[in-house]
C-alpha cells in the first residue's frame, strides 16, 4: 500500500520559507494570498495489507524520524 506523510511547521512557529514564497507571490501580483506554509511530503510504499497496523507503524515513523515534533506537525494518508 501507498502512504503519504505530510510534515509542516507547527501553527505559531514562524516558517521562513513560507514567508519568502508569500512575499514572492505578492510581488507577482497574487495579492489575495493570506498565508503560505511550506512542508514536506514523504511518500512511502509499504509491503503491508493491514491498514490499522500500517497506520500504527506510520505514526511511529513520523514521531521518531519523519517529523521533529518540537517544531513540526504531521498527518498521514493511506492511499489504497
Amino acid at each position, binding site marked *: 500500500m501507498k502512504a503519504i506523510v505530510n510534515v509542516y511547521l507547527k501553527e505559531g512557529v*514562524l516558517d*521562513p*520559507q513560507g514567508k519568502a514564497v508569500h512575499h514572492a507571490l505578492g510581488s507577482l501580483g497574487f495579492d489575495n494570498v493570506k498565508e503560505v506554509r511550506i512542508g514536506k511530503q514523504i511518500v512511502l510504499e509499504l509491503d503491508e495489507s493491514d491498514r490499522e497496523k500500517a497506520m500504527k507503524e506510520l505514526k511511529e515513523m513520523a514521531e521518531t524520524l519523519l517529523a*521533529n515534533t*518540537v*517544531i513540526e506537525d504531521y498527518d498521514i494518508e493511506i492511499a489504497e
Partner: protein
Amino acid sequence: MKTLHVAILQFPGTNCEYDTVYAFRRLGHETTLVWHKEESLPEGIDLVVVPGGFSYGDYLRAGSIARFSPVMKAVQAYAGEGGKVLGICNGFQILTEARLLPGALKRNRNLHFISKIQHLKVVSTNNAFLNRCEKGDVLSIPIAHADGNYYIDDESLDEMERNGQILLRYCDAEGNPEVVNGSVRQIAGICNKEKNVFGLMPHPERAMESILGSEDGVRMLEGFGVA
C-alpha cells in the same frame, strides 16, 4: 589545567573533525576520532564532541539521521551518566534531534547560509564549558550555517533562562543583542538542565589563533580542562 581525553565523533558528511582535533590538541588534550558505526566510546574519556559539518547531507532535517547512528546510543548513555558532551554547529543540531538538548534549529530567518565572524555575548559561566569566560564578555567567533534559527516555546525558554541554560547570545561589538538568524532571544548556545550537555552554532575550534582572526575559542574550549 587537567589533560583530557576527548572523543570526537565522525559521521558521513562531518567536516570539522580535524579542526576540532587541532583545537583540543593545541590545549594539550588527547583526542580520539570515533566513527559513527562504533557502538561504544573509548574507555576513560572526559568529553565527547559532536563536530560540525553536514552529516548525511542534512537530508530530511539537519542532524535527523545522524542521531540514529550506532554511536549515538553510547553518547546517550554517556550523557545519561553525567558525561560531558559538546555539540558544535551540526553537532548542536544532532544533539537537539537526539533530545539531549531542548528545542530545535530551523532554517535561518533570511534563508541564507550565513558565514562570517560574529560577536557573541557570554550569558552563563557557572558550568563546565564557559567557566574561563566572564558574564557579559563579548567574544568574536566564526559562524557558518543555514539552519541555526533556534526555537523553543516561551514557557520552556523562560525555564531555561531561570536555570542558567542560556550560554551565548548573538550581539554587536558593544554587546547589544543582534538578530542574526532569527533565533528566539538571539540564542547562539545552550546547555541541558543538568549542565553536562552543551550546544552552540558558532565554531570556537575555528578561533584558536589570532592569525586566523580570533583566538577567543581558546578561552571557551579550555573551560573543560578546569578541574
